[in-house]
Protein backbone atom coordinates (compact mmCIF):
# COMPACT_ATOMS: atom_id res chain seq x y z
CA UNK A 1 0.00 0.00 0.00
CA UNK A 2 1.17 3.48 -0.81
CA UNK A 3 1.62 6.09 1.89
CA UNK A 4 -1.54 7.80 0.73
CA UNK A 5 -3.56 4.59 0.94
CA UNK A 6 -2.15 3.83 4.36
CA UNK A 7 -3.00 7.34 5.50
CA UNK A 8 -6.58 7.11 4.24
CA UNK A 9 -7.12 3.66 5.69
CA UNK A 10 -5.76 4.76 9.05
CA UNK A 11 -8.32 7.51 9.36
CA UNK A 12 -11.11 5.49 7.81
CA UNK A 13 -10.77 2.93 10.56
CA UNK A 14 -10.72 5.60 13.23
CA UNK A 15 -13.47 8.11 12.45
CA UNK A 16 -13.16 9.84 15.81
CA UNK A 17 -9.53 10.54 15.18
CA UNK A 18 -10.34 11.99 11.78
CA UNK A 19 -12.74 14.47 13.34
CA UNK A 20 -10.23 15.53 15.96
CA UNK A 21 -7.43 15.88 13.44
CA UNK A 22 -9.57 18.31 11.45
CA UNK A 23 -10.56 20.22 14.53
CA UNK A 24 -7.17 20.43 16.16
CA UNK A 25 -5.58 23.41 14.39
CA UNK A 26 -8.63 25.68 14.69
CA UNK A 27 -9.42 24.54 18.17
CA UNK A 28 -5.83 24.92 19.23
CA UNK A 29 -5.79 28.48 18.00
CA UNK A 30 -9.04 29.31 19.76
CA UNK A 31 -7.93 27.71 23.00
CA UNK A 32 -4.55 29.39 23.00
CA UNK A 33 -5.64 32.81 21.86
CA UNK A 34 -9.08 33.06 23.33
CA UNK A 35 -9.66 30.82 26.28
CA UNK A 36 -6.20 31.02 27.82
CA UNK A 37 -6.09 34.83 27.67
CA UNK A 38 -9.53 35.03 29.27
CA UNK A 39 -8.38 32.74 32.04
CA UNK A 40 -5.25 34.80 32.54
CA UNK A 41 -7.32 37.93 32.73
CA UNK A 42 -9.51 36.26 35.33
CA UNK A 43 -6.40 35.44 37.30
CA UNK A 44 -5.06 38.97 37.05
CA UNK A 45 -8.30 40.33 38.45
CA UNK A 46 -7.43 38.72 41.74
CA UNK A 47 -3.91 39.98 41.92
CA UNK A 48 -2.59 43.21 43.36
CA UNK A 49 -1.40 45.89 41.07
CA UNK A 50 2.24 46.58 40.35
CA UNK A 51 2.73 50.35 40.17
CA UNK A 52 5.24 49.92 37.37
CA UNK A 53 2.58 48.20 35.26
CA UNK A 54 1.35 44.64 35.28
CA UNK A 55 0.76 42.62 38.40
CA UNK A 56 2.45 41.47 41.56
CA UNK A 57 2.16 38.01 42.93
CA UNK A 58 -0.57 37.55 45.49
CA UNK A 59 -4.28 37.26 45.91
CA UNK A 60 -6.75 40.04 46.63
CA UNK A 61 -10.43 40.70 46.27
CA UNK A 62 -9.94 44.40 46.39
CA UNK A 63 -10.34 44.90 42.65
CA UNK A 64 -13.85 43.54 42.79
CA UNK A 65 -14.57 45.27 46.07
CA UNK A 66 -13.98 48.58 44.38
CA UNK A 67 -17.13 48.04 42.41
CA UNK A 68 -19.18 48.69 45.46
CA UNK A 69 -17.89 52.20 45.43
CA UNK A 70 -20.79 54.36 44.21
CA UNK A 71 -18.56 55.87 41.55
CA UNK A 72 -18.00 52.55 39.82
CA UNK A 73 -21.42 51.19 40.63
CA UNK A 74 -22.86 54.14 38.80
CA UNK A 75 -20.75 53.34 35.76
CA UNK A 76 -21.99 49.74 35.69
CA UNK A 77 -25.61 50.78 36.08
CA UNK A 78 -25.26 53.47 33.47
CA UNK A 79 -23.80 50.97 31.04
CA UNK A 80 -26.64 48.50 31.61
CA UNK A 81 -29.09 51.36 31.23
CA UNK A 82 -27.64 52.41 27.92
CA UNK A 83 -27.53 48.82 26.67
CA UNK A 84 -31.15 48.19 27.57
CA UNK A 85 -32.39 51.48 26.10
CA UNK A 86 -30.39 50.92 22.98
CA UNK A 87 -31.81 47.43 22.57
CA UNK A 88 -35.37 48.64 23.08
CA UNK A 89 -34.98 51.48 20.59
CA UNK A 90 -33.29 49.23 18.04
CA UNK A 91 -36.21 46.83 18.35
CA UNK A 92 -38.68 49.65 17.91
CA UNK A 93 -36.92 50.95 14.82
CA UNK A 94 -35.57 47.72 13.44
CA UNK A 95 -38.59 45.48 13.52
CA UNK A 96 -40.69 47.57 11.14
CA UNK A 97 -37.74 47.77 8.76
CA UNK A 98 -37.26 44.01 8.76
CA UNK A 99 -40.97 43.49 8.34
CA UNK A 100 -41.23 45.97 5.47
CA UNK A 101 -38.32 44.35 3.65
CA UNK A 102 -39.82 40.89 4.11
CA UNK A 103 -42.98 42.17 2.46
CA UNK A 104 -41.13 43.95 -0.32
CA UNK A 105 -41.21 41.13 -2.84
CA UNK A 106 -38.64 41.61 -5.54
CA UNK A 107 -36.91 44.51 -3.84
CA UNK A 108 -36.02 42.29 -0.90
CA UNK A 109 -32.49 41.39 -1.92
CA UNK A 110 -31.57 44.93 -2.81
CA UNK A 111 -32.96 46.37 0.42
CA UNK A 112 -31.27 43.78 2.58
CA UNK A 113 -28.01 44.47 0.81
CA UNK A 114 -28.48 48.13 1.73
CA UNK A 115 -28.92 47.16 5.36
CA UNK A 116 -25.85 44.96 5.26
CA UNK A 117 -23.65 47.88 4.19
CA UNK A 118 -23.76 49.79 7.47
CA UNK A 119 -23.59 46.44 9.30
CA UNK A 120 -20.21 45.67 7.82
CA UNK A 121 -18.80 49.19 7.60
CA UNK A 122 -16.19 50.11 10.15
CA UNK A 123 -17.87 51.01 13.42
CA UNK A 124 -15.28 53.73 13.88
CA UNK A 125 -16.18 55.37 10.58
CA UNK A 126 -19.84 55.28 11.49
CA UNK A 127 -19.29 56.85 14.88
CA UNK A 128 -17.22 59.52 13.18
CA UNK A 129 -20.10 60.14 10.79
CA UNK A 130 -22.37 60.72 13.77
CA UNK A 131 -19.80 63.00 15.31
CA UNK A 132 -19.52 64.95 12.08
CA UNK A 133 -23.24 65.51 12.10
CA UNK A 134 -23.54 66.39 15.76
CA UNK A 135 -20.55 68.65 16.27
CA UNK A 136 -21.03 72.20 17.45
CA UNK A 137 -20.03 73.24 13.95
CA UNK A 138 -21.52 70.11 12.45
CA UNK A 139 -24.20 69.62 9.86
CA UNK A 140 -27.21 69.46 12.17
CA UNK A 141 -26.38 72.67 13.96
CA UNK A 142 -25.47 74.48 10.75
CA UNK A 143 -28.70 73.45 9.09
CA UNK A 144 -30.81 74.50 12.06
CA UNK A 145 -29.02 77.84 12.23
CA UNK A 146 -29.37 78.53 8.53
CA UNK A 147 -33.06 77.60 8.75
CA UNK A 148 -33.40 80.12 11.51
CA UNK A 149 -34.66 77.57 14.06
CA UNK A 150 -31.91 78.41 16.53
CA UNK A 151 -29.43 81.22 16.86
CA UNK A 152 -26.27 79.57 18.02
CA UNK A 153 -25.35 75.91 17.90
CA UNK A 154 -26.21 73.81 20.93
CA UNK A 155 -23.97 71.18 22.24
CA UNK A 156 -25.05 67.75 21.15
CA UNK A 157 -21.90 65.84 21.73
CA UNK A 158 -20.82 64.67 25.16
CA UNK A 159 -24.41 64.17 26.18
CA UNK A 160 -26.32 60.98 26.94
CA UNK A 161 -28.42 61.85 23.90
CA UNK A 162 -25.39 61.68 21.66
CA UNK A 163 -24.20 58.40 23.10
CA UNK A 164 -27.60 56.78 22.88
CA UNK A 165 -28.17 58.03 19.35
CA UNK A 166 -24.74 56.79 18.40
CA UNK A 167 -25.45 53.38 19.91
CA UNK A 168 -28.76 53.05 18.15
CA UNK A 169 -27.27 54.22 14.88
CA UNK A 170 -24.52 51.70 15.32
CA UNK A 171 -26.66 48.73 16.23
CA UNK A 172 -29.94 49.00 14.38
CA UNK A 173 -28.64 46.88 11.46
CA UNK A 174 -27.69 44.17 13.99
CA UNK A 175 -31.37 43.98 14.90
CA UNK A 176 -32.75 44.14 11.39
CA UNK A 177 -30.75 41.28 9.89
CA UNK A 178 -31.75 38.48 12.32
CA UNK A 179 -35.39 39.52 12.34
CA UNK A 180 -35.42 39.64 8.56
CA UNK A 181 -33.77 36.25 8.52
CA UNK A 182 -36.69 34.81 10.50
CA UNK A 183 -39.27 36.63 8.46
CA UNK A 184 -37.67 35.68 5.16
CA UNK A 185 -39.69 32.53 5.27
CA UNK A 186 -42.81 34.65 5.56
CA UNK A 187 -44.95 33.37 2.81
CA UNK A 188 -47.31 36.02 1.56
CA UNK A 189 -49.79 33.28 0.87
CA UNK A 190 -49.96 32.61 4.61
CA UNK A 191 -51.21 36.12 5.13
CA UNK A 192 -53.62 35.77 2.24
CA UNK A 193 -54.97 32.58 3.72
CA UNK A 194 -55.44 34.30 7.04
CA UNK A 195 -57.31 37.17 5.44
CA UNK A 196 -59.51 34.81 3.45
CA UNK A 197 -60.45 33.21 6.75
CA UNK A 198 -61.56 36.59 7.97
CA UNK A 199 -58.58 37.79 9.94
CA UNK A 200 -58.01 41.52 9.92
CA UNK A 201 -54.44 42.61 9.19
CA UNK A 202 -53.72 43.32 12.83
CA UNK A 203 -54.84 39.86 13.85
CA UNK A 204 -52.90 38.02 11.19
CA UNK A 205 -49.88 40.03 12.20
CA UNK A 206 -50.15 38.87 15.79
CA UNK A 207 -51.08 35.31 14.94
CA UNK A 208 -48.87 34.63 11.95
CA UNK A 209 -46.07 37.15 11.58
CA UNK A 210 -45.11 37.75 15.17
CA UNK A 211 -44.50 34.11 16.19
CA UNK A 212 -42.42 33.60 13.07
CA UNK A 213 -40.33 36.65 13.88
CA UNK A 214 -39.78 35.77 17.53
CA UNK A 215 -36.52 33.78 17.16
CA UNK A 216 -35.11 36.67 15.13
CA UNK A 217 -36.26 39.20 17.71
CA UNK A 218 -34.56 37.31 20.50
CA UNK A 219 -31.38 36.74 18.51
CA UNK A 220 -31.30 40.37 17.37
CA UNK A 221 -31.79 41.60 20.91
CA UNK A 222 -28.85 39.56 22.01
CA UNK A 223 -26.73 40.71 19.08
CA UNK A 224 -27.40 44.31 20.12
CA UNK A 225 -27.33 44.01 23.89
CA UNK A 226 -23.98 42.27 24.17
CA UNK A 227 -21.85 44.62 22.11
CA UNK A 228 -23.76 47.56 23.59
CA UNK A 229 -22.73 46.39 27.05
CA UNK A 230 -19.16 46.20 25.89
CA UNK A 231 -19.26 49.35 23.81
CA UNK A 232 -16.37 51.69 24.07
CA UNK A 233 -15.94 53.49 20.75
CA UNK A 234 -19.34 55.17 20.86
CA UNK A 235 -18.89 56.76 24.25
CA UNK A 236 -15.27 57.50 23.41
CA UNK A 237 -15.98 59.37 20.18
CA UNK A 238 -19.38 60.84 20.99
CA UNK A 239 -19.37 61.08 24.75
CA UNK A 240 -16.07 62.79 25.28
CA UNK A 241 -14.76 62.43 28.79
CA UNK A 242 -18.17 62.91 30.31
CA UNK A 243 -19.95 59.68 29.50
CA UNK A 244 -17.95 56.87 30.95
CA UNK A 245 -19.12 53.33 30.39
CA UNK A 246 -17.55 50.12 31.60
CA UNK A 247 -15.81 49.80 28.24
CA UNK A 248 -14.14 53.18 28.69
CA UNK A 249 -13.22 52.27 32.25
CA UNK A 250 -11.47 49.14 31.09
CA UNK A 251 -9.67 50.94 28.31
CA UNK A 252 -8.53 53.54 30.75
CA UNK A 253 -7.12 51.01 33.19
CA UNK A 254 -5.09 49.43 30.45
CA UNK A 255 -4.03 52.76 29.10
CA UNK A 256 -3.06 55.70 31.18
CA UNK A 257 -4.20 54.43 34.57
CA UNK A 258 -2.05 51.33 34.32
CA UNK A 259 -4.17 49.35 36.70
CA UNK A 260 -4.41 46.04 34.92
CA UNK A 261 -5.95 44.04 37.76
CA UNK A 262 -8.76 46.53 38.18
CA UNK A 263 -9.26 46.67 34.45
CA UNK A 264 -9.43 42.87 34.40
CA UNK A 265 -11.99 42.88 37.18
CA UNK A 266 -14.05 45.44 35.27
CA UNK A 267 -13.86 43.19 32.21
CA UNK A 268 -15.15 40.34 34.24
CA UNK A 269 -18.01 42.34 35.56
CA UNK A 270 -18.85 43.05 31.94
CA UNK A 271 -18.54 39.37 31.02
CA UNK A 272 -20.87 38.43 33.85
CA UNK A 273 -23.49 40.79 32.52
CA UNK A 274 -23.01 39.30 29.08
CA UNK A 275 -23.31 35.74 30.34
CA UNK A 276 -26.42 36.74 32.22
CA UNK A 277 -27.94 37.99 29.01
CA UNK A 278 -26.94 34.81 27.14
CA UNK A 279 -28.48 32.62 29.83
CA UNK A 280 -31.70 34.55 29.62
CA UNK A 281 -31.61 34.13 25.84
CA UNK A 282 -31.11 30.39 26.07
CA UNK A 283 -33.91 30.05 28.60
CA UNK A 284 -36.29 32.08 26.47
CA UNK A 285 -35.33 30.14 23.35
CA UNK A 286 -35.82 26.77 25.01
CA UNK A 287 -39.12 27.89 26.48
CA UNK A 288 -40.18 28.99 23.04
CA UNK A 289 -39.26 25.64 21.54
CA UNK A 290 -41.05 23.81 24.32
CA UNK A 291 -44.17 25.80 23.65
CA UNK A 292 -44.12 24.87 20.01
CA UNK A 293 -44.23 21.17 20.81
Amino acid at each position, binding site marked *: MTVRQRFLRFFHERPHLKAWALLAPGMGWLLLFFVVPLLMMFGYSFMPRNPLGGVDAGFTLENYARFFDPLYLKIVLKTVGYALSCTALCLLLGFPVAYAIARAGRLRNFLIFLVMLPFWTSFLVRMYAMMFMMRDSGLINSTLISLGVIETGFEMLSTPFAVLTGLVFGF*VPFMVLPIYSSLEKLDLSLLEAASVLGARPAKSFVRVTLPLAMPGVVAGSLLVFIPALGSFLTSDVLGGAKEVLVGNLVQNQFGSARDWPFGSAASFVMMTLVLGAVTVYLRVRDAGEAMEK
Partner: protein
Amino acid sequence: MNTQRLPYWLTLGVAVVFLFMHAPLLVLVLFSVNDSKFSMEWKGFTTKWYERLAERQDIVDGLMSSLTVGLASTVIATVLGTLMALAIARHEFRGRRAIEALLYVPIVTPEIVVGISLLILFMAAHFPLGLGSITVAHVAFNISFVAVVVHSRLQGMDRNLEEAAMILGADEITAFFRVTVPQLWPGIISGAMLAFTMSFDDYVITSFVAGTDAATLPMVVYTMVKKNIEPSINAISTVVLLATTILIFVADRAGREESLTAKKAPAE
Protein backbone atom coordinates in the same frame (compact mmCIF):
# COMPACT_ATOMS: atom_id res chain seq x y z
CA MET B 1 -58.50 42.46 1.39
CA ASN B 2 -55.28 43.60 -0.16
CA THR B 3 -52.37 42.01 1.64
CA GLN B 4 -49.79 43.26 -0.83
CA ARG B 5 -49.56 46.93 0.13
CA LEU B 6 -48.27 48.05 3.44
CA PRO B 7 -50.02 50.89 5.27
CA TYR B 8 -48.56 54.25 4.26
CA TRP B 9 -47.51 55.20 7.74
CA LEU B 10 -45.41 52.05 7.95
CA THR B 11 -43.66 52.67 4.64
CA LEU B 12 -43.03 56.27 5.66
CA GLY B 13 -41.66 55.30 9.04
CA VAL B 14 -39.39 52.67 7.51
CA ALA B 15 -38.12 55.19 4.96
CA VAL B 16 -37.23 57.54 7.80
CA VAL B 17 -35.33 54.81 9.64
CA PHE B 18 -33.53 53.92 6.43
CA LEU B 19 -32.56 57.54 6.08
CA PHE B 20 -31.31 57.54 9.64
CA MET B 21 -29.21 54.46 8.94
CA HIS B 22 -27.60 55.74 5.77
CA ALA B 23 -27.69 59.53 5.64
CA PRO B 24 -24.74 60.18 7.95
CA LEU B 25 -22.48 58.08 5.74
CA LEU B 26 -23.73 59.74 2.58
CA VAL B 27 -23.03 63.08 4.19
CA LEU B 28 -19.44 62.00 4.78
CA VAL B 29 -19.07 61.04 1.16
CA LEU B 30 -20.53 64.35 0.06
CA PHE B 31 -18.27 66.42 2.25
CA SER B 32 -15.21 64.47 1.24
CA VAL B 33 -15.40 66.27 -2.09
CA ASN B 34 -16.48 69.62 -0.69
CA ASP B 35 -13.92 72.34 -1.17
CA SER B 36 -14.31 73.72 2.32
CA LYS B 37 -12.24 73.12 5.39
CA PHE B 38 -14.59 74.02 8.24
CA SER B 39 -17.77 75.34 6.81
CA MET B 40 -20.80 73.18 6.25
CA GLU B 41 -21.65 75.02 3.07
CA TRP B 42 -21.01 73.60 -0.32
CA LYS B 43 -18.03 75.37 -1.78
CA GLY B 44 -17.36 73.37 -4.90
CA PHE B 45 -16.12 70.00 -5.98
CA THR B 46 -12.56 69.01 -5.20
CA THR B 47 -10.40 65.96 -4.86
CA LYS B 48 -7.76 67.65 -2.77
CA TRP B 49 -8.69 65.86 0.41
CA TYR B 50 -7.99 62.58 -1.35
CA GLU B 51 -4.71 63.89 -2.67
CA ARG B 52 -3.78 64.90 0.86
CA LEU B 53 -4.39 61.33 1.90
CA ALA B 54 -1.99 59.97 -0.65
CA GLU B 55 0.66 62.38 0.60
CA ARG B 56 0.42 61.25 4.14
CA GLN B 57 2.89 58.55 4.98
CA ASP B 58 0.92 57.37 7.98
CA ILE B 59 -2.15 56.73 5.83
CA VAL B 60 -0.20 54.86 3.20
CA ASP B 61 1.64 52.80 5.81
CA GLY B 62 -1.59 52.15 7.66
CA LEU B 63 -3.25 50.96 4.48
CA MET B 64 -0.38 48.61 3.68
CA SER B 65 -0.43 47.22 7.20
CA SER B 66 -4.17 46.70 7.08
CA LEU B 67 -3.94 44.92 3.75
CA THR B 68 -1.10 42.71 4.93
CA VAL B 69 -2.77 41.75 8.15
CA GLY B 70 -6.10 41.35 6.40
CA LEU B 71 -4.74 39.01 3.76
CA ALA B 72 -2.69 36.90 6.14
CA SER B 73 -5.35 36.57 8.80
CA THR B 74 -8.05 35.82 6.23
CA VAL B 75 -6.11 33.02 4.62
CA ILE B 76 -5.27 31.39 7.94
CA ALA B 77 -8.75 31.85 9.42
CA THR B 78 -10.40 30.51 6.27
CA VAL B 79 -8.30 27.35 6.25
CA LEU B 80 -8.74 26.67 9.96
CA GLY B 81 -12.42 27.57 9.96
CA THR B 82 -13.16 25.39 6.93
CA LEU B 83 -11.43 22.40 8.52
CA MET B 84 -13.48 22.88 11.65
CA ALA B 85 -16.69 23.17 9.68
CA LEU B 86 -15.87 19.92 7.88
CA ALA B 87 -15.24 18.16 11.16
CA ILE B 88 -18.50 19.33 12.69
CA ALA B 89 -20.70 18.78 9.68
CA ARG B 90 -19.47 15.36 8.69
CA HIS B 91 -18.59 13.53 11.85
CA GLU B 92 -20.11 12.30 15.04
CA PHE B 93 -17.84 12.61 17.97
CA ARG B 94 -17.92 13.02 21.68
CA GLY B 95 -17.36 16.53 22.95
CA ARG B 96 -19.29 17.90 20.02
CA ARG B 97 -21.26 20.18 22.26
CA ALA B 98 -18.12 21.56 23.82
CA ILE B 99 -16.66 22.40 20.42
CA GLU B 100 -19.80 24.17 19.32
CA ALA B 101 -19.73 26.14 22.55
CA LEU B 102 -16.09 27.00 21.95
CA LEU B 103 -17.01 28.40 18.55
CA TYR B 104 -19.53 30.72 20.14
CA VAL B 105 -17.16 32.18 22.74
CA PRO B 106 -15.69 34.74 20.29
CA ILE B 107 -19.17 35.87 19.35
CA VAL B 108 -20.32 36.63 22.87
CA THR B 109 -17.11 38.19 24.10
CA PRO B 110 -17.02 41.97 23.82
CA GLU B 111 -14.18 43.24 21.65
CA ILE B 112 -12.54 45.17 24.40
CA VAL B 113 -12.31 42.09 26.58
CA VAL B 114 -10.76 40.14 23.71
CA GLY B 115 -8.26 42.94 23.15
CA ILE B 116 -7.04 43.27 26.69
CA SER B 117 -6.93 39.57 27.43
CA LEU B 118 -4.72 39.07 24.39
CA LEU B 119 -2.53 41.95 25.52
CA ILE B 120 -2.13 40.20 28.87
CA LEU B 121 -1.14 36.98 27.13
CA PHE B 122 1.35 38.59 24.78
CA MET B 123 2.99 40.59 27.53
CA ALA B 124 3.24 37.64 29.86
CA ALA B 125 4.72 35.49 27.11
CA HIS B 126 7.02 38.27 25.94
CA PHE B 127 5.53 37.95 22.47
CA PRO B 128 6.52 40.99 20.43
CA LEU B 129 3.68 43.34 19.63
CA GLY B 130 3.29 44.35 16.03
CA LEU B 131 1.73 43.18 12.79
CA GLY B 132 2.28 39.59 13.90
CA SER B 133 0.33 39.93 17.12
CA ILE B 134 -2.42 41.78 15.24
CA THR B 135 -2.66 38.97 12.72
CA VAL B 136 -2.88 36.37 15.48
CA ALA B 137 -5.70 38.31 17.11
CA HIS B 138 -7.60 38.71 13.86
CA VAL B 139 -7.38 35.02 13.07
CA ALA B 140 -8.76 34.26 16.51
CA PHE B 141 -11.95 36.20 16.03
CA ASN B 142 -12.43 35.17 12.42
CA ILE B 143 -12.17 31.40 12.76
CA SER B 144 -15.61 31.03 14.35
CA PHE B 145 -17.08 33.19 11.76
CA VAL B 146 -15.74 31.33 8.74
CA ALA B 147 -16.57 28.02 10.43
CA VAL B 148 -20.21 28.99 10.86
CA VAL B 149 -20.58 30.25 7.29
CA VAL B 150 -18.93 27.21 5.70
CA HIS B 151 -20.79 24.85 8.02
CA SER B 152 -24.15 26.09 6.90
CA ARG B 153 -23.05 25.71 3.29
CA LEU B 154 -21.96 22.15 4.01
CA GLN B 155 -25.32 21.36 5.54
CA GLY B 156 -27.02 22.27 2.31
CA MET B 157 -24.73 20.09 0.28
CA ASP B 158 -25.72 16.81 -1.19
CA ARG B 159 -23.83 14.06 0.66
CA ASN B 160 -24.29 11.72 -2.26
CA LEU B 161 -21.94 13.77 -4.39
CA GLU B 162 -18.91 12.58 -2.54
CA GLU B 163 -20.15 9.02 -2.60
CA ALA B 164 -20.77 9.26 -6.31
CA ALA B 165 -17.19 10.40 -6.76
CA MET B 166 -15.94 7.51 -4.65
CA ILE B 167 -17.80 4.84 -6.53
CA LEU B 168 -16.36 6.31 -9.71
CA GLY B 169 -12.88 5.69 -8.36
CA ALA B 170 -11.95 8.83 -6.42
CA ASP B 171 -10.51 8.28 -2.98
CA GLU B 172 -11.41 10.60 -0.10
CA ILE B 173 -8.73 13.18 -0.86
CA THR B 174 -9.53 13.32 -4.57
CA ALA B 175 -13.26 13.51 -3.89
CA PHE B 176 -12.66 16.35 -1.48
CA PHE B 177 -10.69 18.45 -3.93
CA ARG B 178 -12.61 17.58 -7.08
CA VAL B 179 -16.16 17.60 -5.72
CA THR B 180 -16.52 19.02 -2.19
CA VAL B 181 -14.34 22.09 -2.60
CA PRO B 182 -15.98 23.26 -5.85
CA GLN B 183 -19.32 23.01 -4.08
CA LEU B 184 -18.10 24.80 -1.01
CA TRP B 185 -16.17 27.40 -2.91
CA PRO B 186 -18.86 30.12 -2.99
CA GLY B 187 -19.37 29.71 0.75
CA ILE B 188 -15.64 29.83 1.37
CA ILE B 189 -15.27 32.96 -0.73
CA SER B 190 -18.19 34.57 1.02
CA GLY B 191 -16.77 33.73 4.45
CA ALA B 192 -13.32 34.94 3.43
CA MET B 193 -14.61 38.27 2.11
CA LEU B 194 -16.50 38.86 5.33
CA ALA B 195 -13.51 37.85 7.44
CA PHE B 196 -11.31 40.25 5.48
CA THR B 197 -13.83 43.02 6.04
CA MET B 198 -13.88 42.40 9.77
CA SER B 199 -10.13 42.41 9.90
CA PHE B 200 -9.77 45.50 7.75
CA ASP B 201 -12.27 47.46 9.84
CA ASP B 202 -11.24 46.38 13.28
CA TYR B 203 -10.13 49.08 15.66
CA VAL B 204 -10.72 48.02 19.24
CA ILE B 205 -8.89 44.72 19.38
CA THR B 206 -6.13 45.94 17.10
CA SER B 207 -5.43 48.99 19.20
CA PHE B 208 -4.58 46.87 22.21
CA VAL B 209 -2.30 44.37 20.56
CA ALA B 210 -0.52 46.60 18.10
CA GLY B 211 2.13 47.86 20.45
CA THR B 212 3.83 51.18 19.83
CA ASP B 213 5.23 50.78 16.35
CA ALA B 214 2.62 49.18 14.21
CA ALA B 215 -0.49 50.99 13.05
CA THR B 216 -3.27 49.75 10.84
CA LEU B 217 -5.55 52.04 8.89
CA PRO B 218 -8.33 52.13 11.53
CA MET B 219 -5.77 53.14 14.11
CA VAL B 220 -4.61 56.03 11.94
CA VAL B 221 -8.22 57.03 11.37
CA TYR B 222 -8.88 56.98 15.10
CA THR B 223 -6.00 59.32 15.75
CA MET B 224 -7.31 61.63 13.07
CA VAL B 225 -10.81 61.56 14.54
CA LYS B 226 -9.58 62.31 18.01
CA LYS B 227 -7.41 65.15 16.81
CA ASN B 228 -10.22 66.40 14.64
CA ILE B 229 -8.13 67.54 11.73
CA GLU B 230 -9.20 68.44 8.27
CA PRO B 231 -11.73 66.90 5.92
CA SER B 232 -9.25 64.25 4.89
CA ILE B 233 -11.01 62.17 7.50
CA ASN B 234 -14.07 62.31 5.31
CA ALA B 235 -11.96 61.20 2.38
CA ILE B 236 -10.45 58.21 4.14
CA SER B 237 -13.86 57.29 5.54
CA THR B 238 -15.26 57.32 2.04
CA VAL B 239 -12.42 55.09 0.87
CA VAL B 240 -13.15 52.63 3.67
CA LEU B 241 -16.86 52.77 2.90
CA LEU B 242 -16.24 52.07 -0.77
CA ALA B 243 -13.89 49.20 -0.02
CA THR B 244 -16.45 47.66 2.31
CA THR B 245 -19.22 48.03 -0.25
CA ILE B 246 -17.21 46.20 -2.89
CA LEU B 247 -16.21 43.42 -0.50
CA ILE B 248 -19.74 42.92 0.73
CA PHE B 249 -21.10 42.98 -2.78
CA VAL B 250 -18.74 40.22 -3.84
CA ALA B 251 -19.45 38.22 -0.68
CA ASP B 252 -23.18 38.60 -1.20
CA ARG B 253 -23.01 37.53 -4.82
CA ALA B 254 -20.82 34.57 -4.03
CA GLY B 255 -23.09 33.48 -1.22
CA ARG B 256 -26.09 33.67 -3.47
CA GLU B 257 -24.88 31.08 -5.92
CA GLU B 258 -27.19 28.35 -7.00
CA SER B 259 -28.42 26.35 -4.11
CA LEU B 260 -26.76 23.01 -3.92
CA THR B 261 -29.84 20.96 -3.30
CA ALA B 262 -31.66 19.82 -6.38
CA LYS B 263 -33.36 22.75 -7.94
CA LYS B 264 -36.67 22.41 -9.69
CA ALA B 265 -35.79 20.88 -13.00
CA PRO B 266 -37.06 22.25 -16.29
CA ALA B 267 -39.96 20.30 -17.73
CA GLU B 268 -39.23 17.12 -19.66
